[in-house]
Every structure is written in C-alpha cells, then in structure tokens.
C-alpha cells in the first residue's frame, strides 16, 4: 500500500465536525441550564412542601460529616431543607437519605418536626423497585401512613432515639415508632424503613443541636 493518501481532508472533516458539534453542544447547554435548574428547584420545593405539610417557604442547610452546620450552602455535605410557615416560624426539616433497595438505591426525603419529635411525611425521590411489587413503597396508602406520625423521640442527652425505628411484619404495628411492612414488597419496605432509621439516628441529634440556627433561617427569608 502506498502512503499517498492525502491526510488533509480527513483532518479537515474530523476537526471541523468536532469543533462545530462542540460549539453546538456548549450553546444548547448554556441555553437549557437555567430551565433545568429551575425545574430541579421546583421539584425539590414540591417534595419538601409535600413532606412538611403547611410549609410556605424553605431554605437549604448543609451539614458536614461530623454533623456540624456549614455556612456555605454550595459546599459538599448532607443537605437538610428547613421548612417555614407563612410567618417564618420553623415548622420542621426535610432530610434527604438513601439506602439499598431490592433493585437499586432508593432515594427518599422525609419530614421531621422537632417540636413534636415526629416524622410527618415521606416521599420516594428515586427508585427502580419492581413495578407492581416493590413500588408499593410509593403507592400503598397503608404503608405511607406509617410515616405520617412516626415517633422519633430523642433521649435526654439528645444523642440517640429513645425507641429505635423498627420495621415489623405487616399488620403487627403496635407502637408509634414501628413501621408496618408490606406483603409482596418485604425487601423494599424493609429497605425504606432501615434507611429512615439509619438517617434519623444520625441526623436528628444534629438537627436538635442546630435548632436555633435552623429557626433563624426563616426570619430573613431569601426573596
């Protein structure tokens, strides 16, 4: 084979198309980014308001791994969303958590009201659980009712739950800190319960320690 193939047209074609496509992607990215961010913010706000009934505004706080409140909301760490009523009083906090389900990681958001020491709502943000079986964690009314008044009292020191959250067999819930499982979705129901239990044990003490800072967030609302 002779090496007389002219390479220039190939460079011209590949580089030309590459640069053109790159510019086009950059342009559309910049154009759609504000819309995408607005959609994400709206979806998050809707979820926060859903798990904290009665809230009218929200503000995001970030905790570092040790459970200390970090001033900069843009930094890495676990995000906690404080919900305030119309008068700017702290209603509760919505906490993001995730845990391994049957098919894949389940991402949830739950609402905690420090004044009542109860979890008052839970929403599944993302799950790939089996349709018709595992996805009952999202659709089963009786299961969802578990999280409308779940007892999560902290001990006197404020460091641990008095009664650890436990998932029990369907229909045997007898205490306010227990979660009734679902027939046909045993693993998914257990997974959500365990995720809430682990997250609550870790984050509720941190929320209590920083209650003043969280409550102060509603006074000068970002508007």
């Amino acid at each position, binding site marked *: 084979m002779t090496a007389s193939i002219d390479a220039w047209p190939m460079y011209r074609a590949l580089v030309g198309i590459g640069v053109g496509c790159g510019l086009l*992607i950059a342009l559309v990215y910049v154009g759609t980014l504000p819309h995408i961010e607005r959609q994400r913010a709206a979806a998050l706000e809707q979820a926060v308001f859903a798990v904290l009934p009665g809230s009218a505004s929200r503000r995001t706080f970030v905790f570092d791994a040790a459970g200390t409140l970090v001033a900069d909301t843009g930094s890495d760490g676990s995000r906690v969303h404080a919900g305030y009523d119309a008068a700017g009083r702290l209603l509760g906090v919505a906490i993001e958590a995730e845990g391994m389900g049957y098919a894949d990681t389940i991402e949830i958001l739950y609402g905690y009201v420090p004044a009542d020491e109860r979890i008052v709502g839970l929403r599944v943000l993302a799950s790939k659980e089996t*349709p018709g079986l595992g996805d009952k964690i999202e659709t089963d009314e009786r299961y969802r009712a578990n999280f409308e008044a779940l007892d999560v009292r902290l001990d006197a020191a404020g460091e641990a739950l008095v009664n650890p959250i436990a998932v029990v067999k369907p229909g045997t819930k007898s205490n306010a800190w227990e979660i009734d499982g679902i027939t046909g979705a045993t693993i998914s129901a257990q997974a959500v319960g365990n995720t809430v239990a682990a997250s609550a044990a870790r984050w509720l003490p941190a929320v209590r320690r920083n209650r003043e800072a969280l409550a102060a967030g509603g006074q000068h609302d970002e508007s």
Partner: protein
Amino acid sequence: MTNPETPSSTNEFMKGLWRENPVFVQVLGMCPVLAVSNTAMNALAMGLATAFVLLMSNLLVSLLRDFIPRQVRIASYILIIATFVTLTDYAIEAISLDLHKALGAFISLIVANCLILGRAEAFASKNGVGNAALDALGMGAGFTLALFCLGAVRELLGAGSLFGFAVLPGGFEPWIVMILPSGGFFTLAFWLIAIRIFERRRERRQTAEALQ
C-alpha cells in the same frame, strides 16, 4: 443513480412507515424498543427523540457527504449523531424532569441505535438533502409508530390505562408482567406475528388477482 423503481418522494417516506419499518420489518434498535415501551407516553417520547436525532443527523450527513472522506466517515457520523443525542438529552431534561427520569440512560443510548447509523451509512451519505430528510422522517415515524404500538398495548394490559388515564373498568386486574421487561418481548412477538399474518394474506390476495 438509477434504481429499478424510481423513488418518488411519497415512496421514500412510506417505505419507513410500513414496507421497511425499522422495528416490525428490519427489527433494528431493539434495546430501546423493549426497554422503554412500558407506557404509551414513554414510548412516544422515545420514538420522537429518536426520530429527531435521525432527522438531524441524516440532514447533516447528507449535506456534508462530499466533505467527509470515506476513511473517516463512520467516526464523523458517530460524532454528528452523538451531538444531537446530547442536545436531545438537555432538551428533554429542560422540558420535563419526570420524563427524563423515566427514559433514563436510554436517551444517551440513542447514539448506539443501529437504525440511525444505518440510515446515515446506507442512505443519507448517498442521497440529496431532500430525499435524506424524507427517508429520516419516514423511518422516524415508523419507529415512533412501532414503539407506540408496543407501549399502548403494554400500558393498557399492564396498568389498565393509556397515557396515565384509566380506561379499563375498575375490576380489571392489571397484568403486571406486561410492564416488566418480559412483557416487552411478548408484545413485540405478538405484533410481529400479527403483521406477518396480515402481510401474507395480502400477498396471497395479490397473487390470486395476478393469476386471474
């Protein structure tokens, strides 16, 4: 180019819709066909997204067909296709987060749909812009139609609804298997059989008419 049958513009469009339907006849792009046809809405959105990418890449490949040397044509086509897939991905996320979540990785995987590269290589690179656009529109419409046929049947039997609206009576017990992956295979098989029977009957009728 002299074809045995001179291609008319309606012919370029209709061949993708029925005679050379990418799903029901060529059986191409099975991965998204089986994976995201669990509801009518997902199927329609996936079909339209694929049709858009197909149209844009066919147009560009046809426009640039004298500019792209043979040796680097596949790399160039993939570059063009990947660009429009990325744009579609951003657009869908900007339009609806829920839809973007439902379609998931399958939007990005449009780039690997052999239907699109196939049309670029077999048709757009050898034909003018007008015919390439008609070919893409026909194939895109055929792909969308086929996906919708699967999605509608699966949602109807698997959830008792269509586009999220309950259409079957409340006493209907949904066949959950239809929205699970295996339901995709069953439904595809059912459609392929139905279309084969229909086509064979038509062929028989035509030969009978020719004999008379």
